[in-house]
C-alpha cells in the first residue's frame, strides 16, 4: 500500500490501487479502515468513486444521525430502484385490445443482422413475449428461411448474462451520470487535438450511418474505425482493383448453370447465404428424364457445407487457390495470365474440363471468391466473370452495403499512438477479444482517457473500458439494416428492453448531443430525415408492417473491369510457400464469438465435424498419420511468435498441409455458458491481417483433450440408409433408390386413417447440411441443452439430427447429409414395447409421446432402429441449473419435459392442432401447406416437405410418388412416414470419365 499512497502526484493510479486491494494474498483485510482512510490516496479514491460519500466520511456522524441516514436510505432505496419510464399512453389490459387473444401468438416483422447484413424475420410473440423466429417470406435475404444463429437469438434475448447496467470503472452506475460526464468531456472534442473516435463492427444501418454523419458534423475531427473479425474488406478491395471503386458483388445464382467457388462458403457464410442456398439447392431434384439446373464446383481450403454439397470438390491449401484460379484464367484466356502454370497436386485435365464447362455455360457461369481470400483473387474472379460474360447475368454489382469506415483497428492503434485520441466509443464490437495480440490493443486502450463500450454483454472490452453501456438486443431495438442486395429492413422491438439496454441510435445520438430517452423516438427522428416529412407516419408504419422497404435494393451496375497490367498476374500466380499453413475461419455456428454464450449454438453440432462446445484444429488424415497424432490430441501451434495449445480433429477432406482453426471460441468474459469454452484462435492472428498464413509449427503435447462430437461413426458401412446417385446413373436407372425385393407383410391389422395422415418427405438432393433445422426444432419444442459432459456421454437432446457420412478416399471424400427426425412408423417398434402405453399411434398416424404417462423404461429407444428418441437422464429443464433455457423463452404450446421422461420429434403436433382448431372454427378442412413443421419452415433450400399423405394431390404425396422416394431401413417393415428422396448429384461427365481412367490406371485423381 505505502508505495502507491506515497506517490503524491495528482495522477493517482486508482486502478492499481483497486487491483492491489483485490489482489492481496497473505493479509486479506486492512487492519482497519482508518489505516487506509488516513492515506491521501484513499481520500482521492473516495472522492472520485463516491463523491457524495466523501464529506460523510470526513465528517463525524453521530449515532442518531447514522440511524436516521440508514432509515432514510431504506425508505428511499425503493424509489431509486425505479427506472424512469418515458411518458407514453398506456392501455390497461383489463380491456383487451381487439386483435389480441391470450394464448394466440402475434407476429412482428423485423430483421436480424450478421456482420451487418440483414436477414428479414418474423418474430412470434405470446403476450408480449418473443418465443420463436421465422424467416420473412418476401425478404430477399431470407425468403422465409433462417439460419441457426437467427433461430438462437431467442435464447440470446433471455440470456441472464447480458449486460444489465451502466458500468463506470467496473461498478454499476447510472445513465445520467454517464451523460453528465460525456457532456463535460465532449467540450474538448471540437478540434483535431483531442479527438473523438468511433469503433464499430460492420455497419449497414442507414440510421446509424446517418447518425455517424451527424457526429462528423458535430465533431469535425471524428474518425470512424471499423473492426471486423470476419472481414469483407478483401471483397471491396477486389472490386477496387478490378473496377476502380468499392462495389458489392451480388451473385444471382438462380441464373447460373455452372458455379465455381474459390474458397467461398456460399451456403455457410455471408449475408446472402440463405438466398444462395435457395437458388442453388431449392427444388434441385431432377425429374426422371430431366436435367439438374446447375452444377457446383468447389475449390476450397477447408471442408465446408458448400464443398460437401458440391458436385466437384477440390481441397487445396488456401494460399494456393489463387494459383489454381490463375491457371484456370489462363485456360479461359484472361489477358495477362496466359502463362500461369498449373499448380502441382491439381490435375491439368480436371482444370481443362472445368474451364470447358465454364466456357460452355458462358454468361450463365459464375466464379466466386471467398471473403478471406486476398483482394487480388477477388479481382481475378471479376475478370473471369467478365471474360465469361457473366456480369449482368449471374452477377451484378451495387453500392457497398456496409458503410465504409476511415480505417480498421490497426489504423485506430496508430491514431492512439499519435496521442490525440481523447474519447473512444466502441459500439457493438469486442476488440479485446478478437484483436490480434500483436496490436497490444489492451495497452493502447488504457492510454485513451475516455473510453465508452456499448455492447450486449459486458465482455472483455466492456470490462476494460471506462464506461460500459448495455446495448439492447436486436429483438428489443428500433433499428434498421441493409440486406446483401442493399434493400433496407426495419427492426422493431418485440419486447421492452429487459435489462434496460440502449439502442445504437440512442447511444450515437447521445454523443451527438441530444439524448432522447425514447428509442422509438430516436429511430423515428432519423427516419424522418431519410423518408422526408411527407406522409411520414403512414409510410413508416407500412414499412414496419412489411418488415422492409420494398424497392429499396441498390441499383444494379454492370461495370467493366479496367485493363489489367501485369501486377495482378504477379500476385495471383504465386504458388505459396511450403510448410504448414494456418487457416482461420469464422466458427460455423458461433461466428466471430459474439454468440459464444448461446447454449443452443454451443451445443449445435458444427456441420462437417459434428463437434459441439469447444472446437479443435482441423488437420488432414495424412498429416495426422505423418505426425502420429490421434483425435483430440493436444498440440501447440506456433506462428510468428504466438503460441496456442489446442486439440486436433482429424478431418477427411482437409488439404494435407492446412490446419484450420475457428474463430469465436475461448471467450473469457462471454458469460456462464461461453466462458472458457475452447481457445481463442485470434491469438494466432497477426496485425498484418489475413486469415491464412504459412510458417505454422505444430508440436504434440502428448495429452488428449476430450472433444464432444455427436456422431462417433462416419462411414455408412455399406448400409443403404442414405441413397445417392449421379444424374447419369439416375437417367440410366430411375428406380435406383427402390429396394430390390417387395415389402414384407405384417401380421398386425392395418391402421385406419379416415381424416389426415401426416408425413414428411426429405429431399436429399436439396439438403446441404446447414443444421438450421436442428436449432429451429430446439426453439420450437423447448429442447434443453445438456452441456459438454453430457454430449460426450451421448446424451444430446436434439430431436432432429443431421447425419453426415463420408465415403471414398480420406483425402478427398464425398460428404453427404441426411436429416433424421422421428420416422413416425406405421408399424412402430416403439409402440408395442412400451409397458404403460406412453407412446401411441394417433388417429392421424403420428407416433405420439404421452409424457405424463412415461415411466422411463427406455424400451422404446432400445427398439427404435433409427435411434431418434431422446431421454431426460437428469432434470435438464430445472431452472436452477446453469444451462437451462430460461422459462420465458419456452414455447407455451409445448410441454417442458421433466426428468426421467422419453421425448422425440412430434412432427410439431402443436402446429397441427393449431391448424385443426383454426380450420374447425372456420368450418373447413386443413389446406395443403397450412401446417409447416419448424424444420420445414426454417429450411433455406426447402428440402423438407410436410403434409397429408391421404391427399394424393398434396405436395408431400407428390414428392413421395417420385421414383427417388425410399424408406430408410424399409426392410424392417416399420413403414416409416418420414421418407427420403434419394440424392442426385450433377457431376461433370468429363471429369467422372477422367477419374474412372485414373482409377483404372492406378492413380488417384485430385478430386
Amino acid at each position, binding site marked *: 500500500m505505502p508505495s502507491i499512497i506515497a506517490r503524491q502526484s495528482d495522477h493517482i493510479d486508482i486502478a492499481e490501487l483497486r487491483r492491489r486491494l483485490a489482489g492481496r494474498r497473505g493479509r486479506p483485510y486492512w487492519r482497519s479502515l482508518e489505516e487506509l482512510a488516513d492515506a491521501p490516496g484513499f481520500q482521492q479514491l473516495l472522492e472520485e468513486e463516491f463523491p457524495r460519500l466523501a464529506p460523510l466520511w470526513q465528517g463525524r456522524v453521530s449515532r442518531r444521525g447514522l440511524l436516521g441516514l440508514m432509515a432514510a436510505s431504506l425508505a428511499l432505496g425503493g424509489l431509486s430502484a425505479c427506472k424512469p419510464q418515458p411518458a407514453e399512453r398506456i392501455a390497461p389490459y383489463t380491456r383487451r385490445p381487439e386483435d389480441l387473444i391470450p394464448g394466440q401468438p402475434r407476429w412482428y416483422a423485423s430483421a436480424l443482422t450478421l456482420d451487418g447484413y440483414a436477414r428479414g424475420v418474423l418474430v412470434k410473440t405470446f403476450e408480449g413475449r418473443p418465443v420463436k423466429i421465422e424467416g420473412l417470406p418476401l425478404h430477399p435475404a431470407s425468403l422465409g428461411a433462417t439460419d441457426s444463429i437467427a433461430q438462437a437469438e431467442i435464447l440470446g434475448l433471455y440470456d441472464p448474462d447480458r449486460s444489465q447496467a451502466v458500468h463506470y470503472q467496473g461498478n454499476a452506475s447510472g445513465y445520467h451520470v454517464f451523460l453528465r460526464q460525456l457532456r463535460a468531456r465532449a467540450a474538448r472534442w471540437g478540434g483535431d487535438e483531442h479527438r473523438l473516435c468511433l469503433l464499430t463492427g460492420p455497419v449497414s444501418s442507414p440510421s446509424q450511418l446517418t447518425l455517424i454523419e451527424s457526429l462528423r458534423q458535430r465533431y469535425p475531427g471524428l474518425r470512424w474505425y471499423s473492426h471486423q473479425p470476419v472481414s469483407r474488406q478483401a471483397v471491396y478491395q477486389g472490386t477496387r482493383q478490378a473496377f476502380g471503386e468499392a462495389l458489392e458483388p451480388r451473385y444471382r445464382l438462380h441464373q447460373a448453370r455452372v458455379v465455381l467457388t474459390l474458397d467461398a462458403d456460399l451456403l455457410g457464410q455471408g449475408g446472402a447465404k440463405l438466398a444462395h442456398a435457395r437458388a442453388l439447392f431449392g427444388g434441385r431434384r431432377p425429374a426422371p428424364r430431366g436435367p439438374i439446373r446447375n452444377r457446383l464446383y468447389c475449390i476450397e481450403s477447408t471442408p465446408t457445407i458448400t464443398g460437401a454439397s458440391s458436385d466437384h470438390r477440390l481441397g487445396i491449401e488456401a494460399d494456393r487457390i489463387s494459383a489454381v484460379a490463375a491457371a484456370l484464367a489462363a485456360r479461359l484466356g484472361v489477358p495477362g495470365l496466359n502463362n500461369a502454370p498449373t499448380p502441382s497436386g491439381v490435375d491439368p485435365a480436371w482444370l481443362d474440363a472445368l474451364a470447358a464447362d465454364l466456357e460452355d455455360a458462358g454468361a450463365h457461369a459464375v466464379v466466386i471468391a471467398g471473403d478471406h481470400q486476398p483482394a487480388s483473387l477477388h479481382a481475378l474472379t471479376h475478370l473471369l466473370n467478365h471474360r465469361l460474360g457473366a456480369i449482368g447475368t449471374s452477377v451484378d454489382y451495387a453500392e457497398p452495403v456496409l458503410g465504409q469506415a476511415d480505417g480498421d483497428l490497426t489504423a485506430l492503434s496508430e491514431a492512439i499512438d499519435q496521442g490525440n485520441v481523447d474519447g473512444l466509443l466502441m459500439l457493438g464490437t469486442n476488440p479485446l477479444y478478437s484483436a490480434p495480440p500483436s496490436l497490444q490493443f489492451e495497452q493502447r486502450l488504457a492510454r485513451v482517457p475516455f473510453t465508452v463500450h456499448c455492447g450486449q454483454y459486458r465482455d472483455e472490452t466492456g470490462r476494460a473500458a471506462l464506461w460500459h453501456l448495455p446495448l439492447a438486443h436486436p429483438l428489443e431495438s428500433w433499428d434498421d439494416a441493409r440486406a446483401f442486395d442493399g434493400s433496407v429492413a426495419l427492426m422493431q422491438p418485440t419486447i421492452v428492453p429487459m435489462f434496460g439496454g440502449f439502442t445504437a441510435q440512442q447511444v450515437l445520438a447521445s454523443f451527438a448531443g441530444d439524448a432522447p430517452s425514447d428509442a422509438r423516438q430516436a429511430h423515428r427522428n432519423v427516419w424522418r430525415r431519410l423518408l422526408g416529412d411527407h406522409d411520414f407516419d403512414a409510410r413508416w408504419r407500412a414499412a414496419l408492417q412489411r418488415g422492409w422497404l420494398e424497392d429499396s435494393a441498390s441499383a444494379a451496375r454492370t461495370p467493366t473491369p479496367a485493363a489489367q497490367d501485369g501486377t495482378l498476374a504477379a500476385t495471383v500466380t504465386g504458388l505459396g510457400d511450403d510448410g504448414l499453413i494456418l487457416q482461420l475461419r469464422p466458427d460455423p455456428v458461433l461466428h466471430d464469438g459474439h454468440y459464444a454464450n448461446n447454449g443452443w449454438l454451443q451445443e449445435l453440432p458444427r456441420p462437417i465435424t459434428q463437434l459441439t462446445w469447444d472446437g479443435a484444429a482441423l488437420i488432414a488424415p495424412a498429416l495426422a498419420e505423418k505426425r502420429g497424432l490421434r483425435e483430440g490430441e493436444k498440440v501447440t501451434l506456433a506462428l510468428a511468435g504466438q503460441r496456442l495449445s489446442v486439440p486436433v480433429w482429424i478431418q477427411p477432406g482437409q488439404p494435407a498441409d492446412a490446419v484450420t482453426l475457428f474463430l469465436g471460441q475461448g471467450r473469457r468474459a462471454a458469460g456462464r455458458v461461453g466462458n472458457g469454452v475452447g481457445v481463442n484462435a485470434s491469438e494466432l492472428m497477426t496485425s498484418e491481417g489475413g486469415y491464412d498464413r504459412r510458417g505454422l509449427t505444430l508440436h504434440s503435447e502428448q495429452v488428449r483433450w476430450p472433444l464432444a462430437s455427436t*456422431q*462417433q*461413426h*462416419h*462411414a*455408412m*458401412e*455399406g*448400409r443403404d*440408409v442414405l441413397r445417392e446417385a449421379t444424374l447419369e446413373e439416375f437417367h440410366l436407372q430411375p428406380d435406383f433408390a427402390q429396394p430390390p425385393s417387395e415389402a414384407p407383410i405384417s401380421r398386425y391389422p392395418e391402421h385406419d386413417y379416415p381424416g389426415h395422415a401426416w408425413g414428411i418427405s426429405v429431399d436429399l438432393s436439396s439438403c446441404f447440411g446447414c443444421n438450421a433445422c436442428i436449432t429451429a426444432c430446439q426453439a420450437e419444442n423447448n429442447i434443453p441443452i445438456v452441456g459438454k459432459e*453430457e454430449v460426450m*456421454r*451421448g*446424451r444430446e437432446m436434439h430431436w432432429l*439430427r443431421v*447425419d*453426415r*457420412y463420408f465415403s471414398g478416399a480420406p483425402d478427398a471424400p464425398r460428404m453427404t447429409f*441426411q436429416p*433424421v427426425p422421428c420416422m413416425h412408423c406405421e408399424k412402430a*417398434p416403439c409402440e*408395442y*414395447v*412400451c*409397458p*404403460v*402405453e406412453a407412446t401411441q399411434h394417433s388417429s392421424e398416424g403420428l407416433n405420439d409421446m404421452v409424457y405424463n*404417462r*412415461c*415411466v*422411463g*423404461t*427406455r*424400451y422404446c*429407444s*432400445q*427398439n427404435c*432402429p*433409427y*435411434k431418434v*428418441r*431422446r*431421454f*431426460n*437422464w*437428469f*432434470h435438464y429443464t430445472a431452472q436452477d441449473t446453469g444451462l437451462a433455457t430460461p422459462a420465458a423463452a419456452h414455447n407455451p404450446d409445448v410441454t417442458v419435459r421433466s*426428468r*426421467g*421422461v*422419453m421425448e422425440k420429434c412430434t412432427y410439431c403436433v402443436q402446429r397441427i392442432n393449431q391448424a385443426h382448431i383454426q380450420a374447425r372454427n372456420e368450418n373447413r378442412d386443413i389446406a395443403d401447406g397450412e401446417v409447416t413443421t419448424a424444420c420445414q419452415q426454417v429450411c433455406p433450400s426447402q428440402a423438407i416437405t410436410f403434409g397429408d399423405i391421404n391427399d394424393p394431390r398434396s405436395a408431400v404425396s407428390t414428392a413421395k410418388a417420385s421414383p427417388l422416394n425410399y424408406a430408410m*431401413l424399409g426392410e*424392417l417393415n416399420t413403414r416409416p412416414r418420414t421418407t427420403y428422396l434419394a440424392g442426385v448429384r450433377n457431376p461433370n461427365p468429363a471429369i467422372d470419365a477422367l477419374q474412372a481412367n485414373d482409377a483404372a490406371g492406378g492413380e488417384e485423381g485430385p478430386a
Partner: protein
Amino acid sequence: MTRDDAPLAPARLDSATLTDRVAAVVLPARAPRAWWLALLLSALLSLLFLTGVVYVLSVGVGAFGLNIPVAWGFPIINTIWWIGIAHAGTLISAVLLLTRQDWRASINRGAEAMAMFAIVLAGSYPLLHLGRPWFAYFLLPYPNIMDLWPQWRSPLVWDFFAIGSYLLFTMSFLYLSLLPDLATLRDRARHRVQQLFYGTLALGWRNSARHWARYEQANRVLAVIAAPIVVSVTGTISMDLSVSIVPGFHFTIFPPYFVAGALYSGFATTAIIAIILRSLFGFRDVITRAHLNRLGIMMLCFVLVVDYAYMCEIFTAFYTGEDFYRSVYFDRWTGPYAPYYWGMILCNVVLAQGLWFRRLRESVPGLLCLALIADIGMWLERFQIVITSTHKDYMPSAWDTVTPTRWDWLIYAGSIGVFFFLLLLFMKLMPAISMHDMRDMLHRRRHRQPKGNPRRERSHE
C-alpha cells in the same frame, strides 16, 4: 445324474444330534467370529448400496453409464443376473423334490433363502432402472378413471408379473418349509423373546400327523406349480430382449438359453452358499463333498447347454444372411467391448470345463473358484448381450459407446453386499439346514426305505 457311494451324511449322525447341532447355531446369542466379520463387511457394502440408491433416486438415472443408443445397462444386466441366481433355489426345492433327489435335504434351505434374497434384488433393479420409479405402478392393471390398462404386448408387463409371481411363490415355499423347523426352535428356545419370535412364526405347528399330511400336500402342490416357473420366469425375462427387433436381442433361442444360463449361475451360487455354511457353522459332515460334487455336476450340465446356445446364436446370426446380425457379432468379437465377450468365453467355455473333473468338483477351493468363475462369466454374458447389441445397431450415425460409472459399480457391488447381509442374518436367525428334511433323509437312509414311498415316519424329539 451320476450315482456314487459317497455318504451324504455320516453314519453316526442321528436325528437328535442333527437337531441339536442345527438349533445350536440359531438359539445361542454367540456366533462365530468369522460370521461377525462377514456380516460387518456385507453391512458396509449394503450401506454403499443404500448410498447409491438414494443418489440415483434423487438425481436421476443419468448417474448410470447410459445413453442413446445404449439406454439399458447395469440395472437390466443385474436384474437378469440376480433372477438367474434365484433360479437354482426353485429348481432344488421343487424339481429335485418331485424327482426325489434326497441329497437336496441339506442344501435346499440355503438355496431357497438364496432365491428369496436374489429375487428381492432382481426386483429392486428394475425400479432403479426406471426414469420415474415413483410411477412404477403404471405397469399394474389397476382401476383408473382413464380405463387405461398396461400394454399387454409389452414384455416388460409380462416381466412384472413373472417377477411378482416368482417372488410370491418363493416366499410361500420358503416359509412353508420353515414351519416345522420354527416349531422345533420354539420348543427349544429358553429366552422369552426367542420363544415369542419363533412361536409367532410357527403359526401353531403342533407336529400332528394331520399337520404333516397338509404340509406334504401343500409342499407338493407348490412344487408342481413351481416347476414351470423355473422355466417361465427367466424365459419371460429373456423375451424383454428377444421380442425386440434389435440385432443381438432378437433370437428365438433366448428363453431356453437364458434358463440354462440362469440355472448354471444359480447352482454356482448354491455351491458358494453351501461352502459358506460348511465353513462358518461346521456342517462339513452334513454338507459333504458328495453334495459339492453333485452341485458341480448340475453346473456342468447347464454350462454345456449354455455353450451350445452360444454356438447356436452365432450360427443363427450368420445363417440369417442379415448384415446387421453379422456385424453385431463381428463387433462383439473385435469391438470396444470385445474384452467382455472374450472374458465370458474364457469363464463359461474354457474354464468351466474344469467341472468335468471330479477332483475339482469335490475340492472346496476348486469348486469355489469354479462357482465364482461361473457367476462372473454369467454376468459378463448378460453385459455383452445388453450393451453390445444396441451400441452398434442399425444406424451407423447413431453408434456410440457407454462407460459404466462409479454409481453402476457401487450399486452392483452394494447389491452383492445386501445379498450376503440378508443371507448371513438368515443363517443366524433361521435354521440354515432344514432339520425336518434332514431327519427325513436320515430316517430313510437308516431304514433303507425304497425311494418314493410317500409314507413317512418322523422321528420325534
